[in-house]
């Protein structure tokens, strides 16, 4: 007997494990008959998961937390039992802004502190000359993209709410908006950064792994209530994802994976761009300069699929820093409980992946080490934060 499931996703490379679990038959082997539903907005994914039109979803990790806390929307407890991707975003800037930052930079252009300080000088110069504030695009108010951009520029003294304008843009509109000057930069997932570089309208300034070594990006999200009622189905789903992730991470399978993801009803873009994303080998400049990183996007390797509650609390801390949430120990606890390594471990047993050394660490380039037990103390170390509600 097979169990029918409807799972929503947004066409991005970090939906890879979900798509491969279905298209390579790993879900079927676990007795699951999954229908993947491609969506156009995170709002849709969230709402359809919340009201039960989807059994599970490819979801921004911060949305799972916001939904569980009832921030900005209906409160529906969500859990994340499988981490679909760690990192995977990049910050891309227009050629004009790239030149401006490079003319101000002191030090290594891959050092986020050096670029953030250079950005603050560019911002100051623009203010002096009476130019309009720079505009940065990101994908959703509750998104890692939002927090990564803010964390980075604030470290250089740029106040993301006062000194620049931060706007939400749907990923498919990012590249056009950069090309026509509506935004000067954006932070988005794959493939959009590469698309901008290939078209010659953007330079990849940073992989987000420059900013944080480990950021929970997208999760396999289910309603807590549904998960408690269907523990066996959820376990089967986790196992199917694990097999898919193992398949994806095997370098020998990369070409096949890129082909599967490139299908029009899946991500629907050039398989070659997907391949570069999975390999962490990206063209960062229209002149053809390449950059490689083993930390660009992790789909399961190094234990990255195991939900790390510390990363959930770090995301909650960002919500507090930027006044999307109020601070309380209860809220921190709710955020932490969204991520469920226990369910991941139970489903996989000895096959569970884990990186003892890295688990529980964020690895941010600035600020003190993150202590999930003391969000207030951690945030007190930052002098740029949202002051007025």
């Amino acid at each position, binding site marked *: 007997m097979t169990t029918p499931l409807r799972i929503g996703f947004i066409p991005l490379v970090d939906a890879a494990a979900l798509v491969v679990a279905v298209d390579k038959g790993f879900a079927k082997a676990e007795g699951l008959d999954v229908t993947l539903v491609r969506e*156009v*907005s*995170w*709002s*849709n994914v969230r*709402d*359809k998961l919340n*009201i039960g*039109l989807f059994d599970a979803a490819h979801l921004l990790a911060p949305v799972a937390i916001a939904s569980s806390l009832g921030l*900005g*929307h*209906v409160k529906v407890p969500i859990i994340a039992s499988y981490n679909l991707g760690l990192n995977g975003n990049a910050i891309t800037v227009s050629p004009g802004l790239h030149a401006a930052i490079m003319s101000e930079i002191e030090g290594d252009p891959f050092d986020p502190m050096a670029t953030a300080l250079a950005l603050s000088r560019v911002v100051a110069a623009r203010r002096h000359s009476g130019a309009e504030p720079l505009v940065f695009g990101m*994908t*959703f*108010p509750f998104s890692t993209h939002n927090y990564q951009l803010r964390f980075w520029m604030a470290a250089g003294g740029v106040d993301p*709410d*006062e000194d620049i*304008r931060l*706007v*939400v*843009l*749907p*990923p*498919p*509109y990012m590249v056009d908006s950069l090309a026509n000057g*509506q935004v000067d930069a954006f932070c988005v997932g794959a493939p959009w950064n590469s698309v901008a570089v290939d078209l010659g309208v953007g330079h990849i300034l940073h992989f987000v792994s420059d900013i944080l070594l480990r950021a929970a990006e997208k999760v396999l999200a289910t309603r807590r209530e549904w998960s408690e009622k269907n523990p066996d189905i959820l376990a089967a789903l986790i196992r199917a994802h694990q097999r898919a992730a193992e398949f994806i991470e095997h370098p020998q399978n990369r070409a096949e994976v890129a082909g599967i993801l490139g299908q029009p009803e899946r991500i629907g873009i050039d398989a070659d761009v997907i391949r570069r994303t999975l390999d962490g080998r990206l063209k960062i400049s229209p002149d053809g300069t390449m950059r490689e990183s083993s930390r660009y996007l992790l789909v399961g390797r190094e234990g990255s699929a195991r939900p790390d509650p510390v990363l959930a609390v770090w995301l909650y801390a960002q919500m507090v820093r930027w*006044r*999307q949430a109020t601070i309380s120990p209860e809220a921190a606890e709710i955020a932490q409980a969204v991520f469920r390594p226990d369910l991941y471990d139970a489903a996989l047993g000895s096959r569970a992946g884990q990186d003892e050394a890295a688990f529980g660490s964020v690895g941010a380039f600035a600020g003190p080490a993150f202590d999930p037990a003391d969000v207030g103390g951690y945030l007190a170390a930052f002098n740029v934060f949202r002051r007025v*509600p």
Partner: protein
Amino acid sequence: MGAESSPKIVIVDESPIRAAILEEGLREAGFTGVVRISEMQSLLARIYALDPDVILIDLENPSRDVLEQMFQVSRAVRRPIAMFVDQSDSASIQASVDAGVSAYIVDGLKKERIKPILDLCISRFNAFSKLQDELDRAKSALEDRKVIDRAKGILMKLKGLTEEEAYVLLRSTAMREKKKIGEIAQSILTASELLK
């Protein structure tokens, strides 16, 4: 917004026909302050300039995420906006998602005032998709007829049949093969292309 005057409603929809149908429905129901936006560039700036009480957006629109930004308190936002969710009425949320529309309201607007707008919206959206289905069916029927006419022509020429006989041959073949007559006609066209 005057408490009793008609609320200002913005419809964000890239389908001009559907937006027009919705606007007409709202006007008929006495909501006179309706503005349509079909261009997604600088969406927020346009909305702020209009300063509406209610925003309606179709769910096929990626710019729905842009509207979520309005919940965030920021300098750019003059009046906080909330998504319309009546937590006590999950049936209406379900109905609105099924119909493919979502409503955002300015904080403070009474539930009783938004409910009739949303209900109307749902029924118009459903009517529109029914219309769209019918149109699609009519289009494919027309396509079929063109294909069948061409297939009949080929049969008449090759086998020296009358139009009536050609049609009977197509129909009986379709019945025997348990296929649609349009499919049989299409395979005749394909075959004749190949044999040219």
